[in-house]
């Protein structure tokens, strides 16, 4: 598949960037900028969807692969391609960006720049999801940071400076370690190609290589930590999450939508694409914490459980609606991390021992984690859209100031409840499918952690109902008597596709799960082949 002479994946990466540059050059006219940005992102979204559907699940390896020389002095190359996991993430990015652009119509200042930043951001996301080369991965991973920083810093809420700085420093802190890790791995192994690294890097032992005189085990441990912390910050895994509530709640609506909807997935995607395949031996090496012996997979699962539980509690303790939704991301992404911990364990066992007792559980858990990435993308974007919609009209995020708005905003109320229920994981809607799969997968492996995580699931109900109660229920607060509170047509158009996807995915998840499942199964079951069939 090629578009204007460029292969479709490269096109996906560059088209938003080109569109963004064009936007910067366009006259400073709000209408033109808005329509142009919407048009561009819609077309790109369509192509992203086409890419998803063009992916053939019957051969679950990387497809649409392109490898062209680039930065050869480093042994890096323009090596891109997608598997089922990246295809679903590309679809998510493609869907969410035009909706975020549509919501950004409410931005009145420096519209061209704002829209251009959104498109730059999209380019960065696509770049990460198609990357099969670690250098490209890192490059685009960093590239997403800059536009989002400016979106928060320039168009955000009252406390935006603090939030943007915190976001930036947190992420940069992670990125520095990751940069080091990328260098350690790439230079020691002599290649940046991810599939190749997955094959050779874990086999390196004692005498296979050194970096500046460091023994390979130290190099591996350092690189692992660098990646782990960088991605843990992004996911975010507890306790690296405190940037998130500030960034999400201060970002403008579109920023929050993309931040929660896709940016967090970069972290989880990084775990799946890099940390799990590259470090099977590190994941299951014994770690002794005060006499309690576990391994990194166990630690990861434990942190995931804490994220689920404490995220739900913290969300339940909020009075600011955007903060409540932001903490719900900590809670929901905890399930992603939980699923990935199972993946890491089973992959490592498969790789090292050629077999894993948890293979079936891990496949289900990983399917669940990737589905949860997609589903959380839909529901958190929807929730931020709705929180933004009500903030835009009332200019307050304090939930105690609302009350009984359902009377005057019946359609908004219905949509709010629908989306909340998707976020809560109501069976029949999308979130349940993925949460069930993660719970099922984690149960066999981390039984007690799963049991404790149920407390988080219970309080998910708590904060969701608290949100609905504060916004919609109760006697109408007469302060808003003369305000227009009902959802606007533009907002409705922006959330409708999300609602349709939530419902379809909840009723018949296989439309996307088949694609994810094929690649997940392939990755996990072929781990032993990669290790040379041990």
């Amino acid at each position, binding site marked *: 598949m090629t578009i204007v002479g460029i292969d479709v994946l490269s096109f996906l990466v560059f088209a938003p960037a080109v569109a963004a540059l064009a936007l910067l050059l366009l006259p400073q006219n709000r209408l033109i900028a808005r329509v142009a940005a919407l048009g561009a992102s819609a077309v790109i979204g369509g192509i992203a969807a086409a890419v998803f559907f063009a992916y053939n699940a019957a051969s679950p390896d990387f497809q649409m692969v392109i490898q062209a020389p680039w930065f050869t002095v*480093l*042994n890096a190359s323009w090596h891109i391609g997608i598997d089922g996991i990246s295809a679903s993430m590309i679809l998510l990015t493609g869907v969410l960006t035009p909706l975020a652009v549509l919501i950004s119509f409410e931005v009145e200042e420096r519209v061209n720049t704002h829209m251009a930043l959104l498109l730059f951001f999209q380019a960065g996301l696509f770049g990460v999801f198609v990357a099969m080369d670690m250098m490209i991965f890192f490059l685009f991973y960093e590239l997403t940071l*800059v536009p989002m920083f400016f979106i928060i*810093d320039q168009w955000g809420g009252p406390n935006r400076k603090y939030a943007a*700085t*915190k976001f930036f*420093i947190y992420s940069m802190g992670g990125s520095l370690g990751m940069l080091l890790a990328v*260098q350690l791995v*790439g*230079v020691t*192994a*002599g290649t940046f190609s991810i599939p190749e690294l997955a094959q050779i890097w874990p086999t390196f032992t004692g005498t*296979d*290589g050194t*970096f*500046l005189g460091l023994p390979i085990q130290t190099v591996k441990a350092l690189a692992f930590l660098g990646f782990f912390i960088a991605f843990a910050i992004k996911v975010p895994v507890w306790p690296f*999450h*405190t940037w998130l*509530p500030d960034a999400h709640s201060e970002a403008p609506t579109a920023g929050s939508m993309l931040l929660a909807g896709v940016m967090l997935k970069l972290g989880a995607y990084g775990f799946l694409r890099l940390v799990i395949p590259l470090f099977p031996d590190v994941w299951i090496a014994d770690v002794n914490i005060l006499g309690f012996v576990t391994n990194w997979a166990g630690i990861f699962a434990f942190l995931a459980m804490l994220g689920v539980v*404490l995220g739900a*509690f*913290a969300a*339940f*303790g909020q009075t600011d609606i955007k903060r409540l939704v932001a903490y719900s991301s900590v809670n929901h992404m905890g399930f992603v991390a939980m699923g990935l911990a199972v993946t890491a364990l089973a992959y490592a066992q498969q790789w090292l021992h050629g077999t894993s007792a948890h*293979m*079936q*559980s891990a*496949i*289900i858990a990983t*399917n669940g984690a990737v589905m949860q990435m997609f589903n959380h993308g839909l529901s958190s974007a929807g929730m931020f859209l709705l929180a933004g919609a009500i903030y835009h009209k009332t200019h307050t995020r304090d939930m105690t100031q609302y009350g009984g708005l359902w*009377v*005057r905003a*019946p359609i908004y109320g219905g949509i709010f*409840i629908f989306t909340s229920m998707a976020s809560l994981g*109501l*069976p*029949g809607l999308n979130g349940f499918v993925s949460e*069930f799969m993660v*719970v*099922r997968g984690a*149960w066999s492996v981390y*039984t007690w952690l799963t049991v404790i995580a149920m407390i988080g*699931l*219970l*309080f998910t*109900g*708590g904060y969701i*109902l608290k949100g609905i*109660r504060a916004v919609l229920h109760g*006697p*109408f607060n*007469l302060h808003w*008597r003369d305000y227009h509170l009902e959802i606007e047509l533009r907002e409705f158009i922006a959330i409708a596709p999300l609602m349709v996807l939530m419902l379809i995915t909840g009723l*018949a998840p*296989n439309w996307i*799960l*088949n694609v*994810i*499942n094929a690649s997940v*199964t392939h990755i996990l079951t072929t781990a032993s082949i990669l290790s040379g069939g041990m």
Partner: protein
Amino acid sequence: MNFNINDPNFLPWLIPVGPLLGFVIITLLTNRSRLIPATSPQYGGHHPDYDGMLVPVVTNWSRAVSIIVGMSGIVMAWLISLAVVGNAFGLNADGIGGKLGQDVHASALDWMATGLTQFRMGVLVDPLTTIMLIMVPLACLMIFIYSIGYMANDPRQARFFSLIALFAGAMLTLVVADNLLLLFVGWEVMGLCSYMLIGFWFEKPSAYKAAIKAFTTTRIADVIMLLGIAYLFAETGTLSFREIVYNAEVLEHLATTPAVIFGGLSAAGLIGIFLIIGTVGKSAQFPLHVWLPDAMEGPTPVSAMIHAAAMVSAGIYALIRMYPLFEIGGHPHDGEFTAPLMFMALVGSVTALFAATIAVAQNDVKKVLAYSTISQLGFMVAALGIGAYIAATFHLITHAFFKALLFMASGAVIHGMEHGEHHVHAHGDHAHDEPAEHAEDHDAAPAEHRHDEHTDATYREPEGGAPRFDPQDMMNMGGLRKTMPVTFITFLIGGLSLAGFPLITAGFWSKDEILADAWHGLTEGFGPHTLVFIFLALAAFLTAFYTARQLCLTFLGEPRTEEAKHASLGEGIVSATMTLPLIILAVFAIFAGFVGVNPGFPILGGILSPNGIPFKEFLKYTLIAEMQPSTLAFDAFPVLVSFIVALGGLGLGYMMYGRKPLAAGEPDPLIKILSPSVHTTLRNKYYFDELYIAAFVKPSQWVSRNVAYLFIDKGVIDGFLHLIARVFTWIGDFLKMMNTWLIDGLLDGVPELVARFGFIIRWIQTGRIQQYLLLVAVMAIVIAVVFALSAGGSSAAVGTP
């Protein structure tokens, strides 16, 4: 898989479609409102009248069309169910290829990819489903008809119909599901619907609080049930009923595998307990019973929906469905109990008695019924606990009919009382002109639930702060038999059935069968049977007593208020649609019991069950062969007990409340008999609400805000980060100071760098955009340098592997 409308295996798919489609159509298309002033009488009495504000009220055509759509949906479901049921009976009669248990209507679709396999969703019609399909669509249909009249003046009737359509659709999905996951989908969607409907009058704090309470309490149980489902799935690789409960091998495997946690149990035992806890929440069993009485805040058809046809029945249905899993590894009929069975016996019998004691002291007409529901569900759970599978199912069905009847009849009473209230208002002789009477009433009832409504200062009562007349308080009623004769007769039939009035009511036969099973075990000396028999017999006595109390207080004697004197359903469509379901259900409340009479019962047994108990002979094929119970020989003693408790309770109630009816303002004679403190404790439901609020609700709110958020996130984690940031800023400042004042001029290059370091750190506080840009540039340079350095080393590294 091709759908073929003529193939009976595909027909069950269509059962829930009608109501679900109804929900979608009403929600998306026919629910239309217009704005009217909130002070208008069309904006019903359950809503605050906001001054000078326009509020949406459903338009007339929208109301009519939505009702038609909703009704069409449920009628469609009912007709298809009839077809399926007819087909199932036919299949069963043939006996070709075994009975219905082995040869079921079923079909399934790939639904969820799990590696190389697929999880399949499907439908199943076996004898148990067939029986449910007789009861559920019919009860739902009655509730729909009733809602036409009951909600006729509500400004949001279209929304109401969309929600009960979804409710019915979810319940029907649950009933036809062929696997535990689809059952759970229906289960949770019903949970949502009950939340939405209990809080239907969402302006009322008491309503939304009850809604949140219902959802949260059941969710506690649901997350544990989810673990059970996950565990079962992990252990067997399937959740299909046919592959689990119809499969002796799988059951045996589960019974012999030790559980992953709680090592003393088998896998079947732990899964069983998890699933039972799900039902404890859904069917409001002790100690998670607290939500159900509060759920009375919803409109009355909702109460009927929740307490009879759907929701709570769903909990019991799930237990019945999974029963083989609980029994495997034990033989309750021989005195060998598994952990899940003991758990059910204990929870059920405690709940049955406990709830019955509360019910005797309630004055709210619907709360009495709510506690009686909890108690009756306890009967069913306890019955399952002693292996009385058939009796539990039988009681589920009869209870659904008479309890739906009772709720709708009580709704008619409330409606009538509200009607009377309007009448009194219209004619100016306000009943509240006699404050003394009401003061006394309040003294007798210190914890009147309606006080909750006044705690929220922003909520304005329609009558401007005056204590609102409570149309649900039985102390305000009396003598309604004269003005509401049809309601009286049908209520009486329902009440007698609930009390187990001998021989002619359905409730007698089903309750008797449970007691007979318990008695049989008791004579063998089995502990759980003994417990169940004693507790249930006592509970049955109390049931008869509070039913008599309720009937007498509501319908007998003279009206105790002006409102009661004028209570009536009026005439026309409202009255007709509210009365018709009562009459139909009353027929079932009597005759549904005759399919379960023991053949050994004198006279009646020979007439009604010449070839064994019809109900049992049909249903038993849901169980695998080795679990199918044998018919117990007829035993006169439990029947005698049934007679004594029913007639004794009814008689005692009549003696206390019927022979000399309560006059207006007269305190409940029960207070004196039980002593005021005991009565107050019962009246306040043993203070479980207060206990839970103090022990769970408040602490979790406090922990969420102060520990999880303020202490851990804001305090420890962010505090640590801010500390680091500050330390670096200080170092930067200090170095810069050194540079400026001390070393300046000595070494040019080094201090310059150090100062730059301090400068970069300081942007934490300054936050100017140029500095960020500078940072990005510096970062880029750093990256480039590292690359350049490492590129040199890479050539060496490449050669080694």
